[in-house]
């Protein structure tokens, strides 16, 4: 849940990058970390295995500056994508204000995308949140791969984007679509916050 400090006029929001293993969640954060000025971001914390697979989460705090007179900070988290890490995925999802679902565009990974999306829905529900109420955007990653290996954004929209929310094509290793996605989810999160918050 967003934390709003009316005294210091600060807003802190939590955004979680969700999706199947190796879809590019950590790469999103690494790209953002590399491009955001040092004075506007903290250290990137990665709790990973020896082979650099996310074990618990990656974490990157960024400072968006002043919006409507509020210093606005975002905490970006990734979850471990591998199926057997569901317990830790649930923990990271707690208190999320927005979710980026990072899908792997490769046709052979379609089932994993579906499974991960269903898992997101279940884990949100376990927290008492209906996925339809959660600010959510989709990112279709690896769109740089040869066309015969991947599904197009419109095919992925048809298959995964049941709410018809905003979706973004990306190649997060090279940065295409990364900031557009973050901007998209940021807008949704702050729009929801703008509707009112506990005083």
């Amino acid at each position, binding site marked *: 849940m967003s934390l709003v400090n009316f005294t210091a006029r600060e807003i802190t929001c939590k955004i979680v990058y969700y999706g199947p293993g190796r879809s590019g969640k950590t790469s999103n954060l690494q790209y953002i970390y590399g491009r955001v000025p040092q004075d506007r971001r903290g250290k990137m914390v990665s709790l990973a295995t020896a082979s650099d697979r996310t074990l618990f989460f990656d974490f990157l705090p960024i400072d968006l500056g002043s919006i409507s007179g509020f210093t606005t900070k975002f905490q970006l988290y990734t979850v471990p994508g591998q199926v057997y890490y569901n317990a830790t995925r649930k923990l990271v999802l*707690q208190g999320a204000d927005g979710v980026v679902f990072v899908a792997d565009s490769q046709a052979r990974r379609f089932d994993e995308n579906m499974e991960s999306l269903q898992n997101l829905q279940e884990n949100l529900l376990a927290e008492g949140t209906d996925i339809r109420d959660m600010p959510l955007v989709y990112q279709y990653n690896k769109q740089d791969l040869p066309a015969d290996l991947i599904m197009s954004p419109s095919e992925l929209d048809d298959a995964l984007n049941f709410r018809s929310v905003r979706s973004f094509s990306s190649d997060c290793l090279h940065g295409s679509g990364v900031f557009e996605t973050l901007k998209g989810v940021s807008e949704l999160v702050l729009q929801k916050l703008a509707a009112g918050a506990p005083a």
Partner: protein
Amino acid sequence: MRALEPWVEQPLMTFLTESEARLTLLMTSAGQVVAQHGFTRAVDIMSAAALGAAIVSSTEEMARVLGVRPFRALTHQGESHGIFLSAFETPRGRWIGLVVYGQDTSLGLVQLFFDRMVDELTQGVPAEGGTKQVLAQDFESELHSSLRALFGR
């Protein structure tokens, strides 16, 4: 010291004076910072809070898996510093305290004064008001320019 709401300041200040802790963070169970003392960069505070909340959540989940009651507190004793972590209920939800202390105090003192601080915090919570408009209607244009400035696009 920095606190999200003024009523948190006095109990935290008393705890810091009595326990002689070096760093203290109070956060929500999701890792959002409520109050802090001793950290310098805001973004580093957020990292510490995220890690602290993760340790507490994973330990509580471990207790659930083992079928035992949640652990009351967690401690890590290093050569020159110790870390004390404990979750507690407040009328504002579940909070977590993360305390880093040095050789000039002890785990026992930290725990003793931490418990007192929790009592003061839970008794001193003011009633919550209704809802308040957070952002101006035109916040989106400011968000766009902020993101443009930050991400260069």
